C-alpha cells in the first residue's frame, strides 16, 4: 500500500493534468459502477408490488344480463371492484336527459355514458369517486338519494339516474368502464369496443 500511495503522490506520470488524479477517476468510476448496480438491483424490489400476472388475468368479466328487468339493477365484480349494471326505466332516462349540462359538476350526457341504441343499460363502477365506498341504490329498496340514482352512505355524495354526481363531496361521475355487448344478453366488462 505504501508503494501505491507514494505513486499517487508523484505528480509527473499519474496525474491527468488539471488537478484530476488517476486515483480519483478510478475511485469515482468504481463507486458509480457499484451505485448503478445497486439501483438496478432495486428494480425487482419495486416491480414486485405491481399487480401480478394472475391479477391482470382477471381483466375482463362476462355478465349475463338477460334476467335484469326494466327498473332493476345488479352488482357484478370486475377486477375485484363492484360494477353496477342498471336497466333504466323510460322515466329515469327522461329525467337524466332533462338536466341541463351546465348545471353539472362533471358534464356528460347519458348518451355519452352508454352505448348507442342501448341507452337503458347504464354500466358504471360501484365505487364512489370521493373515497371509494360502494354507494347505495342498486339493490331493491336501497336509498337512491334525492336524485334517484345512487347515494353514498360514507360522506353523502348523491348521484342521479345517469350516475352523475349532483351533490356531496365526490368530484366526478361514477366511472364508466370499458365494456362490450358480446351478445344481446351478455356484456363483457373490461373489453374495449
Amino acid at each position, binding site marked *: 500500500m505504501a*508503494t501505491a*500511495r*507514494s505513486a499517487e503522490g508523484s505528480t509527473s506520470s499519474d496525474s491527468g493534468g488539471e488537478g484530476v488524479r488517476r486515483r480519483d477517476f478510478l475511485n469515482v468510476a*468504481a463507486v458509480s459502477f457499484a451505485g448503478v448496480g445497486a439501483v438496478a438491483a432495486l428494480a425487482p424490489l419495486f*416491480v414486485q408490488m405491481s399487480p401480478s400476472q394472475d391479477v391482470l388475468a382477471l381483466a375482463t368479466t362476462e355478465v349475463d344480463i338477460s334476467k335484469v328487468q326494466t327498473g332493476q339493477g345488479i352488482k357484478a365484480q370486475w377486477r375485484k371492484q363492484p360494477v353496477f349494471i342498471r336497466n333504466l326505466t323510460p322515466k329515469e332516462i327522461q329525467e337524466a336527459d332533462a338536466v341541463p349540462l351546465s348545471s353539472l359538476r362533471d358534464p356528460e350526457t347519458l348518451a355519452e355514458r352508454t352505448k348507442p341504441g342501448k341507452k337503458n343499460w347504464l354500466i358504471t363502477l360501484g365505487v364512489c369517486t370521493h373515497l371509494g365506498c360502494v354507494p347505495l341504490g342498486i339493490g331493491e329498496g336501497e336509498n337512491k338519494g334525492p336524485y334517484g340514482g345512487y347515494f353514498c352512505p360514507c360522506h353523502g355524495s348523491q348521484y342521479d339516474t345517469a350516475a352523475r354526481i349532483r351533490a356531496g363531496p365526490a368530484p366526478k361521475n361514477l366511472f364508466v368502464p370499458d365494456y362490450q355487448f358480446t351478445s344481446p344478453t351478455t356484456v363483457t366488462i373490461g373489453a374495449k369496443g
Partner: protein
Amino acid sequence: MSFSWAKPYEPKHPFMRWLDDRLPLPRLVYGAVGGGYPVPRNLNYWWNFGFTAAIFLAIQIVTGIVLAMHYYATADGAFNSVNQHIMRDVNAGWLLRYAHMNGASFFFIAVYIHIFRGLYYGSYKAPRELVWMLGLVIYLLMMATAFMGYVLPWGQMSYWGAQVITGFFSAFPVVGEPIRIWLLGGYAPDQAALNRFFSLHYLLPFVIAAVVILHIWALHIPGSGNPTGVDVKDERDTLPFHPFYTAKDGWFVGLLLLIYAIVTFFAPNYLGHPDNYIPANPLATPAEIVPEWYFWPFYAILRSFTFDFILPAKLWGVLAMFSSILLLFFLPWLDKSPVRSGSYRPVFKRFFWLLVIDVVLLGWAGGGAPTPFRNAIGQICAAYYFLHFLLILPLVSAFETPLPLPKSITDSVLHGEEAKAAPAGTKPRRAKTATAVVE
C-alpha cells in the same frame, strides 16, 4: 472506541454539527465502520467474510420481507404460492425467490469461512471470548431460521425436514414427545406448525441482526484481531477502517456477489434438493431424505450412533449433534495456548487442517443415503471431531513449542522488505514509511 489514536469525528458542515449535538448517530457510524475505527494493517482476505456475511444477512432480510408479501402460510396453499404464484405470476418473483434460496447458502458459506478463520487465527481467545460466543449465538439462530425457512415452501423435503427435526426432541425421555407435540401444535406437521414457523422465520432474522450489533460492539472493544495474533502496539500498526477496509471489503463483496449472481441465474437449483418440488405428502417419505448442504456435517453426527449404549442410540445422536456446537462455546478454555495465530503454531496448524478435512468428510457422510461405508466414515469423523476439541486441542496447547512471534504487526509486514515498501525515490526508513501510510 479502541485506540487512543482513533480519529475523533469532526463534522464540518453546520447541519452535521447541529445533528451531532442532538443525535450523534453519524458519530457512532464513523467510529464503528468509518475513519474512526483503527484496524490492523495486515488483515488478509480471510478477514473479508464478516462484512460479506453482513451483506448476505441484509440480502436475506430484504428479499424475505418482499417474498412474505406474496407467500401464504396455509397447508393447502403454501406450495402453490411459492412454486406457482411467486415463481410465475409475481413480477420478478422468480428472481426474488431464487435470490432468497441461494442467499441462504451464500450466507452459510460466508459464515463457515468466517468461523474457520476464527478457529485458525485463534479469534476466540482472550480478550475476544464474547465476540466468539456471540458469533456462535448468531450461528445457532441462523440454523433455526434456515430450517424454518426451508419448511415454508411445503414440499416433500420441507415437510419431512420438519418431521425429522422436531423428532429430535422426542429422543428425550418422558418430556420429549409432549415437547414435540407442543412445538408442532399437532401430531405431525400441519397448518399450526407451518404458521408458527412462518412467524418465527420472519422474527429471527431481526434477532440475528440485533446479535450482530452486539457481536460488532464486543469486537470493537479490543479491536479486530489480525493474522499474526500479535496485539496492536501503536498507530503504525493500524489503518482507519474507511477508506482502507471499506474499499477492500467493498470489492471483495462485489466478487462474491458475482459468484452469487452466477449461481442464482444459471444454476439456481444446484444447491437444493429436487424432491422439494413435490408437494408435501404426509403419507410417504421421500426415498432419500437429507437436509440442505449446510447441515450435512451435523446430520452425519446425528446418524453416527447406531447402537444403544446405556442411553438409547437416538438420544446419543441428538445429544452429540447439539453438543458438537455447544462445545465450541468452551473453546476459549479448551485451547489454552497464549499464541493466537495458527501461523505460529506448527502442530496446531496441522490439526486444524485435519479438522477441516474431517468436517468436509462429515458433510459428505451426511449428504448421501446411509450406506454402511458412508456410515462408517461418518462415525470415524464424528469421533475425531470430538477428539479434536476435547483431547487434541488441550494437549497441543500444553506441549507445543510455538514459533517466535514478530515484534509487532508493522514488523511482520515489513520483514526485510523496507526497500520495496518505501515511497519511490526515498531511502528506506522503517518508521517513516509506516506513518506515511496512515496519513
